[in-house]
């Protein structure tokens, strides 16, 4: 399979699994003029079926776990998963909650962690770029 398309454009789907909106607005900030990742061809899409990268925010609440798995299954291979935020990476402050089943890597395989509460847009862009490298490597194997 040829993956040269990733060198030009990367489509990202964003899943919020009970996050506090902090990471979510930083993701949108990364898309708007100050940081403007669309100039690299990175854009948010409305369905996982079009996505190369899943951006997951939030500590994964109990009702969202099943839906997160479903979204992961709907994303076509090769794919990369980027977790944005401290609570998705390690459960963070929510570690002792009865309704949190995360962190994300307990539910689906994760490739890149972006720590921070919330991480700055630069860090999110860096995380997505690391995911590109990972996808290129996956592509070389296929």
């Amino acid at each position, binding site marked *: 399979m040829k993956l040269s398309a990733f060198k030009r454009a990367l489509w990202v789907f*964003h*899943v*919020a*699994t*009970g*996050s*506090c*909106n*902090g*990471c*979510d*607005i*930083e993701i*949108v*900030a990364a898309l*708007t*003029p*100050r940081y403007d990742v669309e100039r690299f061809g990175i854009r948010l*899409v*409305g*369905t*996982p079926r079009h996505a190369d990268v899943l951006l997951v925010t*939030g*500590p994964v*609440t109990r*009702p*969202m776990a099943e*839906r997160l798995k479903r*979204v992961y299954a709907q994303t076509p291979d090769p794919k990369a998963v980027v977790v944005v935020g401290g*609570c998705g990476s390690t459960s963070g*402050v*929510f570690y*002792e*909650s*009865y*309704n*949190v089943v995360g962190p994300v890597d307990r539910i689906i395989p994760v490739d890149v962690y972006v720590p921070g*509460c*919330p991480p*700055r847009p630069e860090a999110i862009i860096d995380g997505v770029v690391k995911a590109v490298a990972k996808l290129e490597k996956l592509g070389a194997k296929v």
Partner: protein
Amino acid sequence: MSERNPKDPENPVLPGVEEEREVTLGGPERGLAEVFEVPIGPIHPALKEPIRLTFRVRGERIVGVQIRTGFAHRGIEFMGMRQGRNLVQVLYLSERICGICSVSHPIAFTQAVERAAGIEVPPRAQYIRVIISELERIHSHLLWAGVAAHELGFDTLLHLTWRVREKVLDILEELSGNRINYAIPIFGGVRRDITPEQYPKVWEAIRYYRGLLEQLLDAFLRDPTVEARTRGVGVLERKEAEGLCAVGPTARASGLRKDVRQDRPYLAYSDFQVRAITPKDYGLTPVGDVYDKIVVRLLEVGQSLDIIEKALENMPEGEITSFPKIPALLAHLKKAEGEGLGWHEAPRGEVIHYVRLAAGDESLLVWKVKAPTYSNLLSWYPMFEDQEIADIPIIAACIDPCICCMDRVYIVRDGKEEAWTKEGLLRLSWEKTRRLQR
């Protein structure tokens, strides 16, 4: 216009009223009397929090809506009441209730604890809290305005408002060290002072927004497309707003002068004579539609600028906290006993925290949080009634329910499920804009 056959793929049909009715109903001769269920969510781009809305639609019209919440429930109150977390650790947790109003919850929470434990807040600390919370209101209202423009298919306006918004984030970062989650309030005061070098930067930001506000009002309120999409859409009448206990800009857009800063001034707010803003202040009779909600939010940006200006001018000198040492604060809180209520006008409306402390216990005995969106959710019922499917995104967004990521709508027709993606729904909304522009 030339003859067009909707079934002919070579000759695609531009969206028009008749064709669209056929698309959504599967034939003009049937279906107008039938009611379909349209579930949206919980992964949903018009709402940041995962939530599920089930619409009952007849044709293009919404006849009913059911709301299911709980997907983002993280059990924060439970964790805050657990043994082993002291109050400063709970304060950190209260900041993570919402990332957009990340100073509103700590302000309400610290006030509740301060009332319970009898802690005085020095005047300078009160002023700093007011300044940070008004800066937050500017950032939140601009964020909302951008999202609303996006829901209407006006991405130019989204990018414009979000570019403008970066300035206030810079100032918040300058003052607090972080773009989001400022960690400014602590029991008995604030963590950081505003230093003399920082004043000119804040003044510069105020001048920047003063110059831009008129442009923003012009871009949003005097644009015929925005007017066509928002006038008379999602109406919440004054009586309904009163009956459903709507709060914040949602209630004010319906003509209710309801604002905690005006009704029960707290911190230093009594120094600023805050008056709740309704569309009347813009020379309009309040209708309660989406247009009025834009008016109220944009005018509140100007009001926040006024408050910050006055606060900077009259800033008292002195201590920024009555407990400079955290161990002393924790010892005081451990001895304290009683209950307290704290409130704050968050960008979305009134937020209330209730706490009860027990002597000899480091942690909280009871903690109850009421967030503004909780009060505003019910006002969706009258707003959605008899509206078009294409207006769902903007009406869902107009109460500003902490917005982000929708995913699909399922239309069940003859037992078959049809998936509507975020794009499909947004396209429907955008097509309506184009149609109205013609």
